[in-house]
């Protein structure tokens, strides 16, 4: 179980955790930085100050209660639907690949792709405005058309690690895929 610190494409620190359960089963977990207290406080204070200002002019207490409600509901929606805590990739030789992301509220979204549908795992590059971004993706094929790529599933979309981290994961995956496909 090795944990290493990398950075994502925006410069924020992320950690990569490689776990080898057996010679053909490995799990990679990329954890994003947590929600910072500073940002939460800034957001809450600004919303409530605004609400107080509006209340000062209109003298309507509904403004205050609605501001509180909006802040609470907004934070709950954010940690349940938006903030990704960690994303993991579990490679099981000759069975398949499982991609899962878990959100800050504990919700997990998992997809399992069978080995017969997987053509390869590659690192692609994308040009986004002034940047060139590398991302790891799984190439899928139809089971009866082995030479054509039917779709592409990008991995680690929320954490967006940089090339060093991706190369490490790529090499590990290729060891398993080359023997067990």
């Amino acid at each position, binding site marked *: 179980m090795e944990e290493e610190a990398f950075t994502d494409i925006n410069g924020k620190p992320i950690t990569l955790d490689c*776990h080898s*359960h*057996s*010679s*053909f*089963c490995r*799990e990679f977990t990329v954890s994003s930085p947590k929600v910072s207290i500073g940002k939460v406080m800034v957001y809450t204070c600004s919303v409530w100050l605004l609400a107080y200002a509006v209340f000062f002019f209109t003298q309507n207490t509904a403004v205050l209660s609605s501001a509180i409600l909006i802040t609470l509901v907004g934070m709950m929606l954010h940690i349940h639907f938006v903030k990704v805590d960690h994303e993991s990739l*579990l490679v*099981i*030789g*000759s*069975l398949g690949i*499982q991609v*899962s992301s878990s959100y800050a509220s504990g919700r997990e979204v*998992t*997809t*399992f792709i*069978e080995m*017969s*549908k997987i053509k390869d795992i590659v690192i692609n590059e994308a040009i986004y405005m002034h940047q060139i971004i590398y991302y790891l993706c799984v190439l899928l094929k*139809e*089971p*009866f058309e082995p030479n054509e790529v039917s779709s592409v599933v990008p991995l680690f979309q929320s954490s967006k690690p940089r090339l060093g981290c991706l190369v490490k994961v790529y090499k590990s995956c290729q060891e398993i895929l080359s023997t*067990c496909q």
Partner: protein
Amino acid sequence: MVLKIFFPQCCNRADSGLLVGRWIAGHDSAVVLAVIHYPFIPGQVKQYIQQMQAQSGVELSVLGSWSLPKEGQEGLESFLRDLSTIFPQERWLQISRQMGKTGFTCEVLSRDQSEKLNLLTFIFLSGGSARRSNEAEAKKESKDGGDGEEEAEEKVIFVHYEQRKVMLSQLHPIANENPENKSEPSTELREMFQTVAHSQPLFFLDKYDDGLLKSTHWQSEGREASIIVELMKQASVPLCIFISWLLSVWTWTCNIWIFSVFPLCFLSSILSTFIQLSYRTEHMRTLSSPKSAEGHTQFMRKANILVSVLVDVALGVFLMSWLYRDDHISMLADALVPAADHVAQQLEELLQWLMGAPAGLKMNRALDQVLGRFFLYHIHLWISYIHLMAPFIEGILWYGGLSACFGLTFALSLLSDMVALFTFHIYCFYVYGARLYCLKIYGLSSLWRLFRGKKWNVLRQRVDSCSYDLDQLFIGTLLLTILLFLLPTTALYYLVFTLLRLVIVLFQGILHLSVDFINSFPLFAAGLRVCRSYRLAEGVKFRVLCEEPGTALHLLMEINPLKFSSVVRTYRTPTYSCYPKDSWAALVKKLFIGELIYPWRHKTTKTD
């Protein structure tokens, strides 16, 4: 290559015996379905397996042996090895487990050579809670298995699955159930799910059977059935036959009487109540067919229709109980005529305003007066008609409210039709205004072309230049001027009545949308997704349990249920679509030119 063995969770503590299951060809995996215990006679086992194969259609075979030695049962190991000669197989699996330890050992004996293979990974597929602890025992067992002849290093994965859940679950996207269409090979998981789902006859043998064989599977503790469900199944057959007879009589009368008489057949395609009636008849016919549903899709469709009809009727009865209580009907009837009067009065005031100087615009007095008086006369006619009908309104409402006993959708369709009837004058005004405006616009565009010296070439469908005579030009320009200066008046009348018509159309549209929603929403599928989420499976998911380096790996697998949006999209009952057939841009263009708009056009379900 890795050999995958799907092992049911219920057999984890089964007594020693033979493993019965199926080898999945092409994927190097085996599904274990049941364990047949000692003592048995091999001939009877073979006969039983052949019988089960005939009943279920699954290629069953004896996969190997399972041993969980209890006290006083030593020496079974050699007996188990000898069994491989009685049941000749390509590969013979010998799976064994020690009591109190979590690890399994497996030896795979091939027919030609006896290779001892390493056990390296266990994957547990289960839907239950994790109750195993770390075990170092498997490490020792794998090391022992490594001695002896090792010609190929083959790995074995154990996949534990919860048998009942996998049997009941349906993988999505649903594969085509047409057996002639099996062109694409099935994936491993789909084959495994289908094997377990089709092996139902194998699970009928429970421990209370006095037969010659004893087996362990998910139902071996005893088959459960509900007497109410059985009684309902028996009672539903004559009920279905009766309902389908009633429906055939009803459709025969409809076809003979309604569709042959001209005004009725035109009305029945316009009024939404009739359309809803025919749609529901179609549904009831699907429901009441005496054959049971083949396949998952048909079953879900029938169930969705049944639940939708029941909820509809329940809501309708609820509405009825509110309507007929406390004299609400007479209150409504008493409020209706003054409301119609009020609307007519508002329209008259609007027309008076238009006939003056509306919004500061200066209208052409003569045309203004003509149009205003024309519409005022129509309103006067309409009000007399409403007053004529006033005594009958309460009766109409009373009998109309009875239709809610068929369902809320009928009440809503009736309401929509009544709104259309009561605002018929607005529809007439809109048509007059639109036709007038449309004519004016066409005339203007044609005369404008003449003014510029051009002409529309019908043959080439384009604008060409044309030399006109002087008198043609003179008259044309004169007419153009007249039409142009009369344009604001007509345009204003058109605008006002189009807005009114659009408000009515919006209200009717909301009613139709809610009817459509009640008709098509798959309530049964949504309920199944909430209460028994394993039945609608999008896929599977694995989870790693605690493991130790160099020993067996424990993975937990569960069924990944389908997302709600996919449930609704897959199981929506197709309806007669009443969605707008024009896009927004086309609609605005039609409004600008003055073409009549029919935004809600019902498509029949038999679309091409």
